[in-house]
């Protein structure tokens, strides 16, 4: 294993000896232990050792980036050479920059050391529980891994970051099978540092498995209607990513396609919606402490009680547009819960869907989306009737935010975010 701190200091010296006065570098090492089971039987054990180096060099107002994973001294110099030549080939742009001196910060997150025996025990236990308690589920693949990371970042402004982290992650992929029925691919996933609690009892794993079994009861829905869609947290996060990409990202400002360009400080969503990115929240097992511009990340509320606080601009986009910089890259999402339970939200649904996954690609710049819902349940007059197939939803991201019916009091913690269930109205639902 390479001593990253030693290498980092050597790289900093190399910059000085080459006359490079403005540069950033990031060194990383990663170890992975991963088990794969297929239909309940162990199939593959992987042990992986990876390194990384990325170097950003500024040549006056020019910038070039290079990366590699060969941490021999020749390999490192090769990456520096590439970054230098890329910078020299680049255009001059005074907007290229990175953060001023942030000082020294050391972070230790999660569980960097793997407890292989206990992990193996929990994996075997989870697989056994699935086969015994959920015989209807055909688990085609169950992947369980532990990753540990060591990352050192330095730049010529004096910043020095040192992060050690690690966590366990499981993903079980399956379909439910019944007489003449096979459901869509479904999954449960968990990121955790807790090996004391069986995986099945963590987060909403058991609830999701129960919902997957419900998929075996299929219903025909009445053609096309405009109704309610309750997005499960995972799906909500996916929609949030599209909302940020279309309305609040650096690119959307630079391209001029954001439809929220003139909406800073204005209401863009229901007043019950607050979306925050908080790297210091205690529920985050692998927080993103540092932004891509080498700022120490700060908590940021993108939408606060329905009001848009401003685009998530990195330093380049801020310098280019003259708009405020946000020291947050949009990780570690927290959406504040509401006051109504999920059960009550379902009970108050006249006609709609509970959606776990949405397959619709990236919505257009105008926010229009359409796609198929998967692993989703139909609700009518407050009752879950069964699972839907070949069903599409259509709507507009911006309009959706102003058509929130309810936000659940329950929040799902997946290790990287804390997100409730959210019910939206006026979504077009159609089927064959």
């Amino acid at each position, binding site marked *: 294993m390479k001593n990253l701190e030693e290498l980092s200091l050597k790289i900093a010296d190399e910059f000085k000896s080459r006359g490079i006065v403005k540069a950033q570098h990031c060194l990383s090492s990663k170890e992975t232990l991963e088990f794969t089971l297929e239909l309940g039987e162990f*199939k593959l054990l992987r042990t992986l050792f990876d390194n990384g180096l990325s170097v950003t060099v500024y040549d006056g107002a020019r910038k070039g980036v290079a990366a590699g994973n060969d941490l021999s001294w020749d390999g490192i110099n090769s990456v520096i050479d590439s970054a230098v030549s890329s910078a020299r080939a680049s255009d001059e742009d005074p907007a290229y920059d990175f953060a001023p001196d942030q000082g020294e910060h050391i972070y230790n997150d999660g569980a960097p050391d793997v407890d292989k025996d206990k992990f193996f025990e929990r994996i075997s236990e989870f697989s056994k529980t699935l086969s015994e308690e959920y015989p209807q589920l055909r688990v085609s693949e169950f992947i369980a891994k532990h990753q540990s990371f060591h990352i050192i970042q330095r730049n010529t402004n004096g910043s020095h970051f040192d992060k050690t982290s690690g966590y366990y992650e499981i993903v079980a992929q399956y379909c439910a099978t019944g007489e003449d029925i096979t459901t869509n691919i479904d999954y449960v996933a968990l990121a955790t540092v807790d090996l004391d609690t069986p995986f099945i009892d963590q987060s909403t794993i058991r609830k999701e498995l129960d919902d997957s079994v419900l998929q075996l009861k299929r219903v025909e829905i009445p053609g096309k209607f405009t109704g309610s869609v309750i997005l499960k947290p995972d799906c909500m996060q996916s929609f949030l990513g599209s909302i940020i990409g279309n309305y609040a990202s650096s690119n959307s400002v630079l391209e001029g396609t954001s*439809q929220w360009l003139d909406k800073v400080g204005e209401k863009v969503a229901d007043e019950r919606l607050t979306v925050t990115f908080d790297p210091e929240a205690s529920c985050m097992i692998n927080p993103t402490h540092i932004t891509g511009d080498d700022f120490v990340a700060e908590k940021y509320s993108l939408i606060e009680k329905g009001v848009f606080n401003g685009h998530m601009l990195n330093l380049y986009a801020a310098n280019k547009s003259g708009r405020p910089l946000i020291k947050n890259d949009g990780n570690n999402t927290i959406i504040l819960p509401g006051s109504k339970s999920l059960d009550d939200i379902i009970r108050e649904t006249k006609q709609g869907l509970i959606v776990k996954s949405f397959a619709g690609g990236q919505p257009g710049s105008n926010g229009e989306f*359409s796609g*198929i819902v998967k692993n989703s349940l139909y609700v009518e007059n407050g009752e879950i009737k069964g699972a839907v197939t070949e069903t599409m939803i259509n709507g507009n991201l911006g309009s959706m935010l102003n058509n929130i019916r309810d936000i659940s009091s329950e929040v799902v913690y997946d290790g990287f975010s804390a997100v409730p269930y959210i019910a939206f109205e006026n979504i077009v639902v159609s089927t064959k």
Partner: protein
Amino acid sequence: MLEDILAGKKSLFADGVSTVLRGQENRNRRVILLKGNLVGNVRSESRGVSSRVCKNGVYGFSSMAEYSEDAAEAVLKAATENAIFLGNHTNKNVNLRKVESGLFVPYRDIVDLEQKRFIDLCKDLDAYIEKTYPDLLSRTVIYTEDSQDKIIYTSDACSGHVVTPRCFIYIFMSTESDSGAPIELFKAFGGRGCADDWFKDVTWMYPQIEELHKHLMDKKSGVYAEAGYKDVILGGSLAGMLAHEAVGHTVEADLVLGGSIAGKVLNERVASDLVTLIDYANVNNEGKEAALPIFMDDEGTKATDAVLIKDGILTGYMHDRESAERHGVEATGNARGWSFSDEPLIRMRNTAVLPGKDTLEDMIASIDDGYYLCETQNGQADLTGEFMFGICMGYEIKKGKLGKAILDTTVSGIAFDMLKTVDMVSDKMTWSSSGFCGKKQMIPVSMGGPELKCKIMIGGR
């Protein structure tokens, strides 16, 4: 190219197991110009060595981010230990399909150019677009290269050195619709080879850029598609996406094992008899080199074509050595990994619906009320055969003629139901190879098809 330092390590392969030792480098070059601003300027290489050992159907795998003899020895040892450890916790007893042995040698190199060449290339194109199309809200030009260099030694299959250079230029254009909302289209240019193979002279791109602009202008006054079950003509790139998403994934043998619908309908009719669908290894339907030629996969299996549907009948799956043995058929060489640290999985290569005899004009004329769907930007599929893909360019068809352009929408269906509705197949083929497929790991794939007339579920207002 990689220097061969692995040949001497074959002597370290353990007895009684199947071993693959792979050294690999992935090389990426990327330049992004957004409205003339250089927002991306990156060069990267990722290199390492891995080993996979199979004992009675369980696998041990290990990799290191170091291409050296010491690293090769270390991963061989670790992979063997992993296989033994796992073997002690399972009763699995599956052999790998016997395959021929042989040696593949690379027949071309990856030519690396200075970053300045890529930047200048993008700037020239950007300047051309800015000057020629001043009515755009935004334009983005991206040069991207993802090349792979692999050296593979196996204990009981082929060995060899395979080199796969690829490069593309993406052009994105956006404008405002008549109602003031932003709309966007893009096109990819390039394929197998290095920058100078495709982009030494870029004037060949101009007619296609002009067509892209025309479609964007049509889309300005676009209308929403009407949601429902409709007669449509799928453009060639869509037929390719269909071949990949709607059919291809369901007939990957590992997903068949996982419960894919295709597992129940082998040798049965799954499409109209106008439909034949093949996953090509290295030579396409016209006898030319495929867009993504695979000669040997990452298990050392010599790659052969996988005929998946013949005249509407499901005839086979795509296999790795283990699934081929389970099914009692020959391995097809579909096992590939993206980076040195990725284990090989069953992946598609050049998946295509074959052309027929109809003309596009006749196909349009045959539809009273439907759509001509021209371009897609993404797609997904499921074990049930349910698929979806995003449509970014299309037109209404009214009374046998093209009408207004439609705004972005999505189509979906159940593959083996939809394919039975195909009643016309055009005589022209469109191939696209800029796509990536995600299935635990990303991997480059190529897909192709003619225009297809069929019935499909379309999303809309």
